[in-house]
Structure formats: structure tokens, C-alpha cells
């Protein structure tokens, strides 16, 4: 064998890896996940819609109109003829006239080419409260004349504007996810944390409870619980009870996750090291454990929100969750319960359905991206 005498350059062994903080690294990783990043914006927009719904809605969600029963969606047109017959730019919709076929008793709507409804931005319309503090009547987009009605997404069986209803319903549907997740978070983290940190019989008891809850099919359980809500309850109370029922699913998986993290972390060297530094149990949890699994928890919470939205929707759809006059995507879909009404007015299904799918889809993408970013070993 020969001796290699080449002067291989010798480098110093002190590699200096990334100097970014763990949170910055996570953020960078998250941003690389294009769909998740886009979803973050979309979810933000949907929640913004929930916040300023009445401003975005073109009309009053509760306003009925006997001349617009099951009216199909109206399109937006850009150019209209003015009095002199010149075409000029004017956003408008065409008024629709109801015609009833006497023999079949079916309604049909025909657009009236001459009768136009001028549309505009920042128009005055129905009055609403802004964040429960002051009243306003400005709407982002709608008919210029407050007495006109337009139905971009069609109207329901009472002639109410679907678009306004869908936008207003965002608040209830999306917030039920958030409130439910908040409840799950408190219960799940508390029970999961106790279970994982102390172990022993407490752990056993909580684990059995979770196993028990998970082995019961949720829908019959919810149906039983939800059916117990008296119809006469005020909407707000119903809302909170439904939220509680819905969050019963969320906390078990969260508690399991938190427990798993606690168990895995309890014997980690850096936790023992923190105890040796003289920190109390509570300080160890707060300063060392929580920051290390908070990113996972955030991701799991994000993934739990759509589950709750779906749960609320299902219950309300069956007629045992939220009840009208509360407007949520679930109660809107209840209108589209049988095939006959869907065939007559498919927009009853398409509008709220699309919103649910969009909300759940973006939340799932977001949660998935967060989870990937939080997990250093993710594929």
C-alpha cells in the first residue's frame, strides 16, 4: 500500500450551523409550504369576513321578500344604456320578474333587460351594529338605492338574500370552531398535562375516560345531547351549549397529544437539567415544556377547528343543533335538506356548501403546514 502524501487541506472542525432562532426556522419552513402559506391568508380573510360581515353583505340577511321566493342568482353587468341610448360603464344587475305557471304551479324568473338596478361601492343600506358599539349603514357593495334588492347568490324560500346570509353565517360557523377549540384547549391541556406529568392512577383514570369517550360513536351521542336542548332556549345559550357538545370530540385527541408530549419530555435530559437548576415543577412546565410543544399544539388546534365546524354543520343540518333564526352555514344547509328543493334551487346547496368546503380545506392546509413546520423530522 502506498502512503498518501497529498496535502489535503485541513479545515477547522467548528462548523457553525444556522444562527436563526427556532421560531424563525419554523417560520421559514412554513413559508416554503406554498399552499399552507396561501391558506394562512385565506383563513385570515374568512375570519375577517366573520368580523365585518354586515359591512360586506349587500343586504339584510333577515329581510324577507315575497316577490323573490327561490329567485336564482343575478349576474353583475358592467355596461348599461343611459337615457340617450349610449352605452356607458355602470355596474348593475337586472331586475328579475317572477312568473307563475298556473298549470304546474312552478315559479320561473325572467330577467328584465330594461329594468336595471345600479350597483356601487360603499352604498347606504340596512342598518347594523359595528362590533356592538355603534350603528352604521354603509355596505361595501350593493344596490345604490337602499330600497332595491339584489340576489347575487339567489334567494331562499322566504326570498331572503343567500349571499348576505352566507356572509352573516360565517360569524357563527367560524366562531364555533374557535370557541370549541378554546374549550378543548383548556380541558385537553389541563387533563392531558395532569395525566402526563403526574402519571400513576390519575393518568390511568383520565386515559380510561378518554378511551371510553372515543369508543362511543359521536353522532348518536351528540344527537342525544343536542336533542336535549329545549327549543325555547335563547339563541345565545343554544350556541354555547352546541359549542360545548361539539368540543367534546376535540379535547380527547388534544389531551392524548399533550400527555404524549409530557411523557416523552418528562424524562428528557433538558427537563431534568431544568429541575436541577432549581426550577419548580410549575416553572419547568411553563418555561421548558410548553415552549417545546406549543408549536405542535397550535398545529393540532388548527386541525381541530375544521372538525368542529363540520360537527356544528352536521348537527344544525339535522335540525338538532343551532336553530333558526341563528344563521350559520349548517342552518342554511338545512333549507337544502331534500332533493326537491335542491333541484328547484341548487344555490341553496352550492353557496353554503362551497363556503364550508373552502373554510375546512384552507384550515386543514394551514394546520398541515404548521405541523410540518413544527416537526423538525417531518418528511
Amino acid at each position, binding site marked *: *500500500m*502506498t*502512503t*498518501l*502524501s497529498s496535502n*489535503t487541506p*485541513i*479545515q*477547522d*472542525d*467548528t*462548523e*457553525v*450551523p*444556522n*444562527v*436563526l*432562532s*427556532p421560531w424563525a*426556522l419554523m417560520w421559514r419552513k412554513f413559508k416554503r409550504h406554498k399552499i399552507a402559506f396561501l391558506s394562512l391568508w385565506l383563513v385570515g380573510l374568512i375570519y375577517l369576513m366573520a368580523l365585518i360581515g354586515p359591512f360586506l353583505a349587500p343586504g339584510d340577511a333577515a329581510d324577507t321578500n315575497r316577490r323573490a321566493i327561490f329567485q336564482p342568482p343575478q349576474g353583475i353587468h358592467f355596461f348599461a344604456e343611459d337615457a340617450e341610448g349610449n352605452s356607458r360603464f355602470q355596474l348593475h344587475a337586472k331586475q328579475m320578474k317572477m312568473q307563475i305557471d298556473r298549470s304546474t304551479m312552478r315559479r320561473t324568473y325572467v330577467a328584465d333587460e330594461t329594468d336595471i338596478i345600479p350597483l356601487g361601492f360603499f352604498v347606504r343600506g340596512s342598518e347594523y351594529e359595528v362590533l356592538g358599539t355603534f350603528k352604521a349603514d354603509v355596505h361595501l357593495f350593493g344596490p345604490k338605492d337602499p330600497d332595491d334588492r339584489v340576489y347575487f347568490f339567489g334567494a331562499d324560500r322566504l326570498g331572503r338574500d343567500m349571499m348576505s346570509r352566507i356572509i352573516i353565517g360565517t360569524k357563527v360557523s367560524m366562531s364555533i370552531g374557535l370557541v370549541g377549540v378554546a374549550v378543548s384547549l383548556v380541558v385537553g391541556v389541563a387533563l392531558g398535562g395532569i395525566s402526563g406529568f403526574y402519571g400513576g392512577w390519575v393518568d*390511568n383514570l383520565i386515559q*380510561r375516560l378518554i378511551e371510553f369517550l372515543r369508543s362511543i360513536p359521536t353522532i348518536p351521542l351528540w344527537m342525544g345531547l343536542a336533542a336535549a336542548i329545549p327549543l325555547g332556549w335563547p339563541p345565545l345559550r343554544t350556541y354555547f351549549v352546541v359549542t360545548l357538545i361539539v368540543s367534546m370530540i376535540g379535547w380527547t385527541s388534544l389531551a392524548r397529544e399533550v400527555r404524549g408530549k409530557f411523557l416523552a419530555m418528562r424524562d*428528557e*435530559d*433538558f427537563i*431534568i*437539567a*431544568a*429541575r*436541577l*437548576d*432549581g*426550577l419548580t415543577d410549575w416553572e419547568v412546565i411553563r*418555561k*421548558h415544556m410548553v*415552549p*417545546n410543544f406549543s408549536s405542535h399544539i397550535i398545529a393540532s388546534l388548527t386541525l381541530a377547528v375544521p372538525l368542529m365546524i363540520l360537527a356544528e354543520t352536521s348537527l344544525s343540518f339535522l335540525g338538532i343543533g343551532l336553530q333558526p333564526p341563528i344563521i350559520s352555514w349548517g342552518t342554511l344547509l338545512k333549507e337544502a335538506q331534500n332533493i326537491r328543493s335542491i333541484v328547484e334551487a341548487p344555490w341553496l346547496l352550492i353557496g353554503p356548501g362551497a363556503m364550508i368546503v373552502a373554510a375546512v380545506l384552507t384550515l386543514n392546509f394551514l394546520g398541515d403546514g404548521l405541523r410540518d413546520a413544527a416537526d423538525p423530522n417531518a418528511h
Partner: protein
Amino acid sequence: MLIDPKTDLTKPLVEIRNLKTEFFTEDGVVTAVDGVDLDVMANRTMVVLGQSGSGKSIMARSILRIVDKPGKITQGSITYNHADGRSIDLAAMRAGAPEVREIRGKDISMIFQEPMSSLGPITKIGQQIVETILLHRKVTKVEAKEEAINLLDRVGIPRPAERFEAYPFELSGGMRQRAMIAMALSCEPRLLIADEPSTALDVTTQAQILDLIAELKEERQMGVMLITHDMGVAAEVAEDIVVMYHGKIVEKNDVFSIFDAPKHPYTRALLASVPKLGGQRVHRLPDISQLLKNPDNPPAPIPAKPRPPAGEPIIKVRNVNVEFPVGGGVFSKPTGTIQAVKDVSFDVYRGETFGIVGESGSGKSTLSRAIMGIRPPTSGQIEFLRKDKPVSEISSAGKAEMRDVWRDMRMVFQDPQSSLNPKLRVIDLVGQCIEKAEALGRKDLSERVSKLLTQVGLSPEFLLRHPNAFSGGQRQRLGVARALATRPELVIADEAVSALDVPIQAQVLNLLQDLQEEFALTYIFISHDLAVVDHICDRVAVMYKGEMVELLTRDELAAGPKHPYTKSLLSAVPIPDPHQRDRKRVS
């Protein structure tokens, strides 16, 4: 069937030319193997020696074309010469090509570091061997099973017919590695590649596995390529040695030349920084960065200073037992206990370095955790005698007293990665205990931590960094800084250098010694590595199956231990000197 004697043993089995293997990651291209030329001969044992990240393992995997994505061979050739004279360039083939698969497992087979994770977890051991046989040889299933049982017998697995039906998790680490070897040998390969085959095993098991490989190599006249970071292992088994560094081969030669007259500065530095068992005690281990800067004039080793005479006891351990409950289901009581530490008593004197050595499962870590009060003993007393403070009885101290004890008794952990919270900055990691001990403003704290960083050889600029921005050695320095932050009297180092590469290990050992002088520290130093313990400790306690079998001074250890277990342990430690390889092993 042995290799046909007519086969030309002088023709290389594998000729590697200008091999380059690169990894295409998101952060750029990493060249793992960088222009390697190598001939692998039949009937020779070639050791590829290198530290982590040297590319030795990737080089070996490139031969079989089993480099995981995103790794790719980008240049060079790997020629395999079949026994019948055919040659094939493996580097030019598709990784999964039939021509390559035909060679894998049949002509060239491989064993890996961690037999537990390298064997299919839910497939029976015997099945995994039979499968290999059926893949390459035209035999019936019954014949294959018979052959597999014979192989299990050959590699020294007792009751082979019974073990044929065992799952990997039912075997011990050593047995698993034997099963792995049986599988690798099942088609009579011409070359066996062993990737750190003994690293995950205890010293005595390691010796057995290395002996087995050597024996089988003689018996079958096969080539062996053994990859290791351990210079002791290399000196014990190698005929030829290849030293790799940063993807390149820096030196290759026969084993005696490498150890007696290393040519390349890196090889020299590497050999110099290994602590050697026995021999003259040196004050400090040579620092690789010094050696590399000045390769031609290595500093002469400084003999160790005489140690200060032992002071008063600082720790008194009396009849300590530690038991763990085992078994037991959800509602049922534990079925029994494991006695991890059995009736151990000793004193540690102020100012000394007290070593505890033992193999995995010997109870040394459990003992150290009992002394720290992390898991108090089931019975027995542990007294901690501090200066100017009343004696603390660890086994019965309350939470508040323990917090006070933990200021004066600190710990350095084995794994610098897992013992530093990744979400905290250095100032909090190191300064947290100071903050708890004394009320300090943020500014004072940062001054204190900066000073500590300087003391452990890190720049004070690192104050606001997170642990992920440090290399392994730097992280362990942080661990040391944290241990020293409250100016303790006693530091327990639990395998504190075991996870580090040899040159870094030397640096951290030196640091510990310097700090001991500076701060008048007492160390309890726990390690499985007898050479490291011998280098740094004044007295050594040997643990075996929970018992302390022997307590020796360093001179007594050098003179020869009395207890048979210590003797066998001592003889099993691979010595980085090929001239000593024929010494007798005691088992």
C-alpha cells in the same frame, strides 16, 4: 463451501476510482465522498477509520449502491471483479439494477451498527436469513431453513433451532448482531462490509463480535471492510487502514505503519488525542487544532502534575439500593422489581476525580442519579458534606433542601443535544440557575454568563444564540458552563464525553481538568470507557450488574485489578496499539 483456492487473491475484489458521492439538499450540495481511490482485496481486513461526517459510511454504501436519497454518485467508478473474471462498474449502473442486486447479499454483504433497527422488527430472525438464502441460491425452503439454523449455530447463538423462531426484540444486542452476521454470511460473500458493527455494543460483547468476524474471515478467506471511528478497534483487527477526513482518504497503509509512523498530520493528531489505557499519565491530551496548525512540531506531552492529597469526604454513600418496579398492567400491580443498584458504599473526597465505570445496565447512571437526588435510593444513605453548610441527607431531603443542594452539586449530561432546551437562548440556558439562586438583573446576569462562556472557551458573542447554532463540542462546553454557573463544589459528569468524536473529546477532557484546578472542583466521572476514566480519574469504582465489584486507585488499576470482572473488562478494551493485539483476553 470456501472460496475456490484457484481464485486469484491478488486481484482486488473492488476497485474504486475517483469516487464522488454528493447529497443534494435544500441548503445546497454536500460532498460526502470526495474523489476516493481504493482497492479492496480478498482475504484482507481493511479498516476505514474516520470521525463522524468523514464520509466513511457513505463511501461503503456507495459500493453497494444503497446510499439514501438525496445522495448520488456524481463521479468515478466502482469496479467489481466477479470470481469468474467478469467485471462490472457498479457506479455506472442504476441503483436497483438486477446486476447490482445480484451482487448485493451474495458477493458483497453488509452488517450495520444498530442490529435492533437494522433487522426487520416484526419478521422472525430465521425468516430473514432464509429469505436471503432463497434470494440468491437455488435451494428448497427446507434446505434453506436447515442452512439458516447451521449459520445461527456457527455465529455462536445457543439453541439455534429455537432462536430461528425469535423476533429481533427478543434477543440481546450481541445476539442480534450475531444473527445479522449469520444473515450476511448466508450466501458466502467474497466481501463483508461491516459498518461500525460493534459501536452500539458493550466492550466485552464488542470483543466477541470482532473476534467472530476475524475468525470467519480466516475461515472463508473473504475480504472484510470494517468501518469504525474507534482507533482501538482499528488497531485490534486491521491489516490495512484507510484514514478518511472530510470525504477524502488522507492516508492508507498497513496497520503497523499507520500506528507506528503516521504520515499525515490528521492521522498523527487523531492518534495523539486518544487517551491510552495504562502508560504514562499525561497532564493534558494534545489538542487537535494545535496539532494541525503546527504539524511538524507537536508539543511534547506534559507529565501529569502530582495530584493534591485527598481532602475530607464530600460525599458519603452507605448501603445504597435502587429498585425499579417492572411489569404490571393498567390495573395490576408491578410483577417484580429490578435491582439496579445493590448495596453500594463509598466515599468521595474533596478535590479528587472519582470515576465510576461499567457496561450498560451496570447501574452506574442510576447510582449517579441517586446521588443527585433525581431518583432517590430505595434504601441507604447518601450524605453531602458541603463547606460552611450542614450535612444534607440526599435520600430524605425535601424539595426546598434539594434545590439548595443542586446549587452546590451540578451535573453534566451525556448528550449535549438533548440536555439543552432547543427553545432557550444561551443566556437563559446557562444563567437560569444563577437567576434562581441569586436575584440578578438582566445586565449582571449577562455579564456573569459572558464570563462563564469565556471560561469554557466560547465567545461571549454567543450569548443570545439558541443551541441549534452550536456544534456538538460547543454544546458540551455550554453544558459545562451551565454546571459551573452556581460555583458548585461537586460536579457529576454522566458519560459527558461519550457522544463526542475523539479530538473533541480530548478538548472537553482538557477543559474539565483546567476548570477543576481553577474552581477547586470535585468530580464524579461516569463512563463506560475505561481509557477515558483512567486518563482523568484518581480513583475508579467498577460496577457490574448493580454491584460495586472493585474500588481502585489509578496505580492499582495500572498494576492489575483483582476482581475477575475488572480483569475481563480491562482485557476486552481495544487498545490503540497493534503491537498489543495478541495479548490474552480474560473472560
